[in-house]
């Protein structure tokens, strides 16, 4: 199975958690604006145009909707903001209940209609809030990256195929141990200082062309990766394309891993590939005084000043480069 198929299969029926939040956010902004711009229209539609107090209530509802909208569109925690909409619905239903008890005839009919609409909206809001909670619990994260390396395809393939080389350029890995031609054992530093390890197997191996692998057994973070090697048009270089899929678990570990990869998870793979290119083209991972540990997106800024390191900084950086101190230093 390719990474693409894996993603397609596992994401079937799932909605992007952000999508509902954005839709509700725009809806809130629209409703809020309408309430504030045309309060009398709202009062007539809902049948409360006989009450002077309703002028103020409608405006307050409008203002509140604007807050929901802004929170859903620009806030960090979509789930919490979705629940504020549910709370707003409850207030609206209570107000409508009070209004209903006091009215008869045409106005009452309009109020019943409005209550029905709010009830339907409440159902949507609850579903969105619960859905946001669930998608936060478990999700797939797909990372891709590509680079061109001025070395023959066979050499780039061979370097990667020797999986023990991977920690040389993938900074989150501590070690990969090859058990036999198909099976390997991987060890990485989890973001909060714990070491996680898992077994993996090669599921596709086309020499000089493609390698695919996946975790086996009860890996804490199940994952799947493919790398393809193609000849660049110059006839000298090799184009490398990588796709890695993490099946992020719920709870603390999943949240921590997601945080580890940051807001731009692709950057991680891109940085890894840059180091792979450096290793293959120059034989080393390039360091500067500012970036003593080489380029690492998560640790890039602020850097230490571009001046020679003190002896203690150097010892620590050397350990970091060898991957021995990643857990304390970068997490």
């Amino acid at each position: 199975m390719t990474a693409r198929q894996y993603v397609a299969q596992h994401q079937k029926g799932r909605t992007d958690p952000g999508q509902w939040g954005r839709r509700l956010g725009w809806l809130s902004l629209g409703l809020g604006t309408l309430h504030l711009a045309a309060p009398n229209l709202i009062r007539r539609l809902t049948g409360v145009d006989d009450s002077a107090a309703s002028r103020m209530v409608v405006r307050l509802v409008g203002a509140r909707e604007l807050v929901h909208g802004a929170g859903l569109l620009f806030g960090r925690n979509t789930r919490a903001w979705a629940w504020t909409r549910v709370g707003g619905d409850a207030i609206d239903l209570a107000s409508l209940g009070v209004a209903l008890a006091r009215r008869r005839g045409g106005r009452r009919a309009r109020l019943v209609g409005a209550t029905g609409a709010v009830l339907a909206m409440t159902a949507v809001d609850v579903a969105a809030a619960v859905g946001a909670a669930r998608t936060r619990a478990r999700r797939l994260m797909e990372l891709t990256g590509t680079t061109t390396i001025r070395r023959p395809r066979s050499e780039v393939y061979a370097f990667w195929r020797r999986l023990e080389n991977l920690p040389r350029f993938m900074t989150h890995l501590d070690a990969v141990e090859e058990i036999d031609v198909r099976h390997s054992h991987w060890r990485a530093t989890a973001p909060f200082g714990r070491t996680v390890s898992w077994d993996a197997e090669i599921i596709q191996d086309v020499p000089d062309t493609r390698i695919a692998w996946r975790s086996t057994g009860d890996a804490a973070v199940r994952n799947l990766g493919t790398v393809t090697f193609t000849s660049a048009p110059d006839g000298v270089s090799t184009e490398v394309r990588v796709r890695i899929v993490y099946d992020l678990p719920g709870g603390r570990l999943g949240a921590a891993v997601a945080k580890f990869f940051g807001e731009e998870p692709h950057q991680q793979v891109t940085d890894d590939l840059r180091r792979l290119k450096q290793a293959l083209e120059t034989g080393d991972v390039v360091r500067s005084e500012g970036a003593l540990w080489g380029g690492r997106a998560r640790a890039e800024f602020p850097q230490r000043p571009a001046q020679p390191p003190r002896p203690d900084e150097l010892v620590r950086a050397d350990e970091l480069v060898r991957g021995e101190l990643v857990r304390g230093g970068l997490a």
Partner: protein
Amino acid sequence: MKAVTWAGPNHVEVQQVDEPVILNERDAIIRVTSTAICGSDLHLVDGYVPTMQKGDVLGHEFMGEVVELGPGIDRNRLRVGDRVVVPFPIACGSCNACAAQLYACCENSNPNAGIAEKVYGHPIAGLFGYSHLAGGFAGGQAEYVRVPFADVGPLTVPDGLTDEQVLFLSDILPTGYMGAEMCDIQPTDVVAVWGAGPVGQFAIDSARMLGAAMVVAIDKEPYRLSLAEQAGAIPINFTEVDVRAELLELTGGRGPDKCIDAAGMEATHGSLPIDAYDRAKQAVRAETDRPHALRQAILSCRSGGIVSVIGAYGGFIDKFPVGAWMNRGLTLRSGQCHVQRYMAPLLERIQRGDIDPTRVITHTMSLDEAPHAYDLFKNKQDDCLKVVLKP
């Protein structure tokens, strides 16, 4: 050791820092014997280049003696005791950019490539002492400096040449030369050079060396213009005359065939309101660079001509005359200088006496005097054109 460090906008200091150590296998440590302040260092000091940090060691024009070599250096290529000039772009020599001799675009030498890529679309090479965007490498205005990929860049200096004769092979001489080379100069060409600073002076020398019929220098400092005149250029002072009208007059209405922008992002305009307009936009970050020279070069250049940009630009500009450029078929060429490409041939020219780089030096000072030297150079006091520092 002593080093010149950036201490915030408009502030340079001499600081005591640790001596450099080998960080990569192909590093060398150089004891600096001469280093210079570059016009582009002023962009850093003035605060126009992002990602500078307090304590960054400045300097990308330097030379000296090899005192230590990493284990990955071929001893037939470089030995302890060799006297070398170091090019300012750091280049690995083995990526596709280096294979194409585009050393300033080296794909491997910038550990902060991820950041550079966000600003420029693709990464740029690591540069000595030129912000963390350019890698965060300590510069050479210091007693010692670490030089990565020392088996690629540094040029061994033959005996019998002084530091002053070869120091500028590190940057400004090849930069000026590349500015002229990009113009494909023909024997009938009139070449106009905006900016008569050190790079502009070498662009003038190079344009003459490459056979231009006439070279024009545009600046506002009389002492810089008179130096250009001594080098055979026709001076135009943009604070006194209308540059475009003067260029038309000199070329029978055609405009210069080739134009070189050796001014860059902190150019000044002869018209006070226009100058104030761009300064204001720059101050509020509505544009990062003031492109007066570039605009004027594009508008002045004859149709079908070449505009060659070697003055440093950092970010974004406003009111680029795209209509003039497109409709009149101009060619725009540019680049940080691929210094490694030009060092050996220009060394030969120096040895043959085709060019005398020492003519731009106006001040020689100690490293301790660096803050004063920056002031003189920045404010164009004491007819300062080029400062050489002796650590």
